[in-house]
């Protein structure tokens, strides 16, 4: 048994216990990001750093082992700054939008990308429910803020958001008053990752999930607006800029917790955004990866479907290798990765 002190409280633990576990015994909570229970710690995010007073060393609690006589402090200004900066450094190499620019710009904060997806799936009534809490005249006063920032604009024309909203208002479908979708997307998270301008070679990545045959649908009926078919067609142009995990992303949660800013550290040459689809299993967005290595641990013995890091240093990137065949066991592996990936780097396509 090893005896040590954490925040002036004594604790006795078995050998090979981490400081994180020892703290837990005392009911002391240390923030973590890359560490996940049931997996071996990679200690890459440094959000869990604690201070060992005797040696003056700062160590990651998730993997540092308890040593007899340690005197650990889990909270002090220096640690707070280190934790916050660790998150801010992660954010400075993080390329993606938590919330789509359109939604972000909308004064009513309508979840436009989701609305578009529902329209394209012909779930008009659910889509309409998005508008139920919003005053009718919002759009008439806001001067198309959403379309001004729509990322589709970089490729051809912005998605005709206002027309789609008008279409929903005009359609005689009833809005589902009580609906799960609406509630599920209500998140309290405030932090928003945003990567700035879309680059030339990122366009094709975005178009992987959008219709690209035409620039913008013009309604045949100019007075009444889109028909259902036209609305579906137009909604299909939306590129799913919002992050698929924006309601549950641990990085976003941490960023909120530490009030982190994305542009504290500005680094030359950000990496290009890529979206790698392995339908129907998952979509991988390596630029949202925080290098926790959990997906690698999950898939490490599979020859048909496995993740690995490529390169090292700042260039390091998560990569997926897979064979074309899809089996039940692969589906469950993929699900596990989606579930455990702490960010939107690995997510379910739908």
């Amino acid at each position, binding site marked *: 048994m090893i005896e040590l002190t954490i925040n002036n409280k004594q604790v006795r633990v078995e050998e090979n216990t981490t400081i994180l576990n020892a703290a837990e015994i005392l009911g002391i909570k240390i923030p973590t990001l890359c560490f996940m229970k049931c997996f071996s710690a*990679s*200690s*890459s*995010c*440094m959000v869990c*750093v604690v201070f060992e007073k005797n040696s003056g060393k*700062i*160590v*990651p609690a998730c*993997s*540092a*082992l308890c*040593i007899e006589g340690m005197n650990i402090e889990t909270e002090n200004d*220096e640690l707070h*700054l*280190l934790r916050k*900066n*660790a998150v801010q*450094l*992660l954010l*400075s*190499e993080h390329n993606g939008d938590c919330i789509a620019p359109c939604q972000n710009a909308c004064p009513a904060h309508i979840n436009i990308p989701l609305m578009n997806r529902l329209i394209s799936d012909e779930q008009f009534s659910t889509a309409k429910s998005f508008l139920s809490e919003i005053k009718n005249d919002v759009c008439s006063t806001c001067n198309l803020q959403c379309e001004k920032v729509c990322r589709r604009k970089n490729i051809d024309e912005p998605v005709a958001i206002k027309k789609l909203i008008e279409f929903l208002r005009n359609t005689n479908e009833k809005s589902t008053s009580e609906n799960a979708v609406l509630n599920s997307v209500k998140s309290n998270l405030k932090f928003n990752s945003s990567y700035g301008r879309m680059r030339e070679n990122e366009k094709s990545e975005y178009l992987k999930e959008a219709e690209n045959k035409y620039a913008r649908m013009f309604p045949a009926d100019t007075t009444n607006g889109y028909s259902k078919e036209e609305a579906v067609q137009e909604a299909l142009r939306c590129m799913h800029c919002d992050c698929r995990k924006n309601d549950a992303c641990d990085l976003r949660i941490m960023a909120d917790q530490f009030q982190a800013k994305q542009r504290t*550290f*500005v*680094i*030359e040459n950000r990496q290009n955004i890529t979206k790698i689809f392995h339908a129907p299993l998952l979509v991988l967005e390596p630029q949202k990866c*925080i*290098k926790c290595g959990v997906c*690698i641990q999950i*898939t*490490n*013995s*599979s*020859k048909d479907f*496995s*993740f*690995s*890091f*490529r*390169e*090292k*240093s*700042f*260039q*390091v990137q998560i*990569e997926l*290798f897979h064979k074309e065949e899809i089996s039940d066991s692969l589906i469950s592996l993929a699900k596990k990765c989606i579930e455990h990936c702490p960010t939107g780097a690995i997510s379910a396509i739908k």
Partner: protein
Amino acid sequence: MKNYTQLINEFKKKSENDKGYIIPILQAIQNEFNYLPDELLHEITAQTTITYSELIGVASFYSQFRFTPSGKHLIKVCVGTACHVKGAMHVYDAFTRHLNLNETEDTDKEKLFTLKQVACLGCCTLAPAVQIDDITYGHVGQKDIPEIINDFLNKSITSEKNIQKHHLKNISDAEIRIGLGSCCVASGSEEVNKALEKAMDTAGINVKVKQVGCVGMCHNVPLLEIEKSGKIIASYAKVKPENIKPILLKHFASSSVFKRIVTSLQNKAEQFYYPDLQSTALKKFLDYREKHVNDFLQKQVHIATEHKGILNPLDIDEYISKEGFAALKNCVTETSREEIITTIIKSGLRGRGGAGFPTGEKWALFSKQQADEKYIICNADEGDPGAFMDRMLLESFPYRIIEGMMIAAYAGGATKGILYVRAEYQLAVLRMKTAIAEMVKKGMINSPLFNSQFIFNLEIFEGAGAFICGEETALIASMEGKRGMPHIRPPYPVQHGLNGKPTLVNNVETFASVPWIIRNGSTIYANIGTTFSKGTKVFALAGKIARGGLIEVPMGITIKEIVEDIGGGISGGKVFKAVQIGGPSGGCIPASLSETTIDYQSLTEAGAMMGSGGLVVLDESDCVIDIAKYFLNFTQAQSCGKCVYCRVGTKYMLSLLNKLSSGKAKMEDLQELEKISLQVKKGSLCGLGKSAPNPVLTTLKYFRDEYEAHISGICPAKKCKDLIQYEISTICIGCTKCAQNCPAEAIDFAPYEKHFIKQELCIKCDICLQVCPTGAVSKQNIKHD
């Protein structure tokens, strides 16, 4: 085409665990094809338990491997520290232009040459150095490149084998020694060796020629020493093949010829002279009794490099005759394990790999571990871009290193040793392999040693090119077939190392010091040095110094003594500015602090580090921001990429330094740089990240005014490209030389009139300045104070 199934099976047989041979098998493929063909990677996956992901993860981590075919020949431009300060990037750029490569290419259209940057070819005294396949070129100037490429294409490639074969019978009591360390070879000692053989053939002289390892005086290579009746009667420095005949005749030929030579050499004293008669600078003869030769040697103490320049590296009998293996024998036959460890503890020996952990204590911890298998690893992954001590030790004293390892193994109760050597160190690998084979033949390895129960087994593992694998936990990870990512300690390798077994990791130099300590006793060793730093340290002395080389100095010597006495001060009449000590983890110590002593404590207090032993001397023409940027670029690129402070933090630091060197930084950026540097030190997981900010922090501390000058747009050393321009002054004689050599056609010229540089075309390649015979070309800050 080979049968790859067979190859894979061969590897499978060697190790019970598939993962253990990932790196060796990739190396075998890479050696065969010069790259890793994808089909073969799939083949491995099909036949073993290794997944394709693992292969890609590992292969992409190490710089030795490539995924695309390379050219027929590999050009390695050294961008190590010593070469960097002597303009290696200009040389690299010139090769790029010569081979017509664009930014993304590394191989020319004809697929003849692939161009690569490497850190330290280990002949820093010949900087800038370039290696094409096996041939090394020193002092490479940009304008020499076409000539070098031609020379290479004409040369037949010599290999170690034909160097080895020549052992003439000793007919007299004389001996000619020629150094065949990497520096020596690079400066042409093989040619000298061949000329020697030829001259002896034609003149019918038969003297024993002995190839010895690094002599240490790398600034004087090729070096030839002549010994008669056990005494060195003459030493020739910077010998050229054409000098051989006169030298030979002088000492060994018939009297009539001898006379002739003597007259022609009348005015030269006998002991030690430069035979290069053309150069007046070199005409000056050197005498061992003369002050500066004396200084170079006198302040040194040879322990790890004992008998340097005398031992034939691979002659085991000679090693034995010079007390070799006496320490080992004493340990195995007469000393208890505890006594050995006590001796090492008392000697005060600390690890020479950088961190300086007390060696005896580590051995004691190791010997206490109970396990069915324990390993000894000799860490020879020397990756500091300006250091080559370990390589020299491996090349010159293979038996001594093995002896040290075996003593450690015996004392620690281990029987299996692994020598982890950088794959780039081909000569070292070859010598160690031969040395092991010799010892197997002698019944010292793989057999009971000195009739005891102790049977030692030793293998070589070639590292695949990743600086971080010098860190012990990363080193072990790479041996287990993983990406070389460190993990937090504890558990220390001593407790939980290779394959989960107790593993003792020590540095080459640490092991090389052990036999001496055992033979001479701990007290004598502990009397050398300071209170907390005992014994000696080997340094690779290079940079802007008159006499560079491999030196072994007692702890406690001052920087000044090293630079001025041993190194002979700054070359070229410039002013001494600083020493960069400890490589990428170390720092810059300014000339004003040159009384600082070399010991663990005072170097750390000064913000630097003992590190591995790179010692690069800087003069006034070196810009500290350029140096800080150079090292940070290195560590940043070599970060394993695991923890965020090292992976991203150093990248951010680099962004700030780039801002500085391009004159775009503001005063706040300095504070920002300092703040983030301190945080990277605290928040990184392993020694690489924890020490990466040192070069930045020390330069910030000692040369803040220079940083501030850059903020106002001025580079005092005129090094930062964005801040300077090339100008031609009125002393130009209009010789058109610069214009002819300018790769950008940026020089307007009319013969016999002052030339003029068109700034918008100039690519700042420095050639005009180098070729101008009158010194009319100069660098000027674009902005003036």
